[in-house]
């Protein structure tokens, strides 16, 4: 029996894709520009089917790449000749326990669906990546996803209390945050599908704040806006979110259907949200307002009603897509710098953009120092594509030089492999590979990602695929 036939026997005919045309959309995730063709794609319907698929792939020795909704921004869910294991059909919210404030979910549940389901208990799921209307919780777990509100509430790592994991060899392990022994759950979160595949996860739910106020401050100088960010944090106010958008981003948003009424002539706008108990909130709102104005804000708008707040947020959440209007292609970057370095980094980024003749749009989680410099461009223009590439490499190097990191929430995936050497020593990268080998000694799960191949000494996936296929054929007496 062929591998495809074995998988069809598990998931049914329509949920295994093999033909070239049908695999095209699975060549990319949310980061356009990279294309890798999987050998086939398989979509189990539930945890039992998923486990059976993992075990079939294990006995065949075939590499595989887990994928949620394909909204990732680092090329992490691309399968180069490997099997693509789509987990989007595992979309059941198994249980919500409002008393313990936890939810048990399958990995394919869409982030915002959990919040929707928890609303009636006055709870929500706090990590809110901008793709939350599309991305899955399993993908969030794999990437240790962040989001605007992670400034106050923490990233995915801080919200996962347990995961039932299918290791690449088909063993099932239950990892719990309060397990004695090593923090294996902590190591698993953010392992980008290289340590195995979560079949079920238990996450914390957070009480909805009693009151929420959103402020929009606009600045005529991007430097003033950046200084304001540090000043707010230093003043002891911990906003739920502190986001910054530059003029180019505001322009894109305002031209889209998500126009939020941002001032298009501002050099930068800050979106600040404070939430929590009603008591003391006004003091924080006034504090933010005062700090913004003291740092040169032209105007500070304060929204308290849900509709008005949603409108202010809408533009931020859809900013990345709105840049699709500016040019046919878009590079999306993700880097973090110490907060006090924001003003100088933004100046450097602007200079790098100018030197390379590209337009950098900055939209980012300023409160965390988490930059998202994005460049809209036309990939069919070789010269422009080269300039974009140079600019991005220079920006990332500037972030590393400033004591920062190459990814705050998107993951390394394929796109950031090239920066790993500049960030970590060879021994550290080797240590990461050793950890990976504990979970996946065959290195079949999401091969070629996160750590550059020479440290992990991986075989090429295509070769491995062929070998695995042969082994499968031998085992069954059939042909591949």
């Amino acid at each position: 029996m062929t591998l495809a036939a074995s998988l069809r026997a598990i998931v049914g005919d329509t949920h295994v894709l093999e033909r070239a045309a049908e695999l095209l959309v699975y060549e990319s995730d949310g980061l356009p520009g990279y294309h890798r063709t999987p050998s086939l794609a398989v979509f189990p319907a539930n945890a039992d089917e998923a486990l059976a698929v993992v075990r079939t792939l294990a006995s065949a020795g075939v590499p595989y790449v887990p994928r949620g909704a394909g909204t990732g921004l680092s090329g992490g869910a691309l399968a180069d000749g490997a099997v693509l294991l789509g987990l989007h059909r595992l979309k059941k919210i198994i249980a919500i326990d409002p008393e313990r404030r936890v939810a048990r979910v399958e990995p394919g549940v869409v982030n915002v669906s959990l919040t929707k389901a928890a609303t009636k208990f006055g709870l929500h799921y706090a990590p809110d990546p901008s793709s939350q209307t599309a991305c899955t919780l399993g993908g969030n777990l794999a990437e240790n996803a962040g989001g605007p509100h992670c400034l106050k509430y923490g990233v995915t790592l801080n919200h996962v209390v347990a995961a039932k994991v299918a290791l690449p060899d088909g063993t099932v392990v239950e990892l719990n945050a309060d397990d004695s022994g090593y923090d294996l759950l902590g190591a698993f979160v953010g392992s980008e599908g290289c340590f195995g595949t979560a079949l079920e996860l238990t996450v914390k739910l957070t009480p909805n704040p009693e009151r929420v106020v959103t402020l929009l401050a606009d600045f005529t100088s991007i430097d003033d806006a950046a200084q304001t960010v540090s000043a707010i944090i230093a003043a002891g106010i911990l906003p739920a979110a502190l986001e910054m958008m530059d003029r180019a981003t505001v322009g894109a948003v305002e031209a889209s259907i998500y126009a939020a009424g941002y001032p298009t002539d501002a050099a930068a706008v800050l979106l600040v949200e404070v939430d929590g108990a009603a008591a003391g909130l006004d003091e924080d709102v006034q504090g933010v307002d005062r700090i913004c104005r003291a740092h040169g804000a032209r105007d500070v708008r304060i929204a308290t009603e849900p509709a008005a707040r949603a409108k202010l947020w809408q533009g931020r959440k859809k900013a990345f897509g709105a840049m699709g209007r500016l040019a046919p292609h878009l590079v999306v970057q993700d880097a973090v710098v110490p907060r006090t370095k924001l003003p100088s980094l933004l100046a450097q980024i602007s200079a790098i953009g100018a030197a390379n003749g590209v337009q950098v749009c900055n939209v980012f989680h300023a409160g965390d120092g988490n930059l998202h410099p994005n460049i809209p461009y036309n990939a069919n223009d070789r010269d422009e594509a080269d300039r974009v590439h140079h600019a991005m490499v220079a920006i990332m190097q500037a972030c590393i030089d400033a004591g920062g990191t190459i990814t705050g929430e998107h993951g390394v995936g394929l796109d950031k492999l090239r920066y790993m050497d500049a960030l970590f020593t060879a021994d550290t990268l080797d240590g990461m590979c050793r950890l990976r080998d504990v979970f996946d000694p065959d290195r079949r799960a999401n091969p070629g990602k996160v750590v550059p191949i020479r440290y992990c000494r991986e075989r090429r996936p295509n070769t491995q695929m062929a070998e695995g296929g042969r082994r499968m054929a031998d085992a069954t007496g059939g042909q591949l």
Partner: protein
Amino acid sequence: MTLRPASVAELASVITDAAAARRGLRLIARGTWLDGGAPVSADAEPLYLDAFDGIIEYEPGDLTITVGAAMSVAELDAATAQHGQWCPLAPWGGDDGSVGATIATATAGPLAHALGLPRDLVLGVECVDGTGKTLRPGGKVVKNVAGFDLVRLMTGSWGSLAAITRVSLRLRARPAVDETWLVVTDAAADLCQRLRRSVTPPIACEVVTRGTLGANSPDGLLVRLAGNAAYVAAARDAVHGAGDAQRADASAWTPVRTAARPQATRAMLDPAVRALNDGVKHAFDPSGILNPGIMG
């Protein structure tokens, strides 16, 4: 000869030699928590890490700090207080222990419920593993998903995978108002749950029994309220509404914290999870020389 390396390079060579000789090492920074884990094999040789001390990098505007792992929690507290900041580790056992040990043992404290566990506060480490390799995972920024998470792995590993030499931590601005109250009640555990779920939760609340806070101190709940003035005023009202509340000194937390001790255990692990644990130990300390036996 006492093993007291003065640099990471020296530490690496000490560990490399010990690994070659399969000689057990007992990691000691300030030596306050040596009774915490399971007994370390008696023949393990003490390895003193107190040279890895002091502030390495502290830019208050970033609200992050990098310190030598042997720095005490009290010294960290004093250094950050000068800039109106703090790292809310406040581990069980008190402030005499080292920052490195707090991270290595993942020892929480009364603040963890509201302000995060050690795994939530540590941003990066430098450490030398059981093969003598120096690892520098994580970083000094507050958000970082670059690479596999060796930081979380080292946090709570009880020095059985690597000797931590340097720790980067997330800081917070100190609250404008920070006060402690003792609510006299014999239903303290219930009250603790209720306050934590209220709209103005305290940053810490712990059940105390008669005599904990000095001779004749009553049964009750020790509560710490922090935030801006308006918030604390509202929280204070909630506490007063719950019973007979007496203002207490911040030092009241010391006996509560020192009464507890971090404990390592690896009991009750599922066989598949235990196999992963063994795999991790083997990957980072294949000779089994670092704190041998400490995790049971």
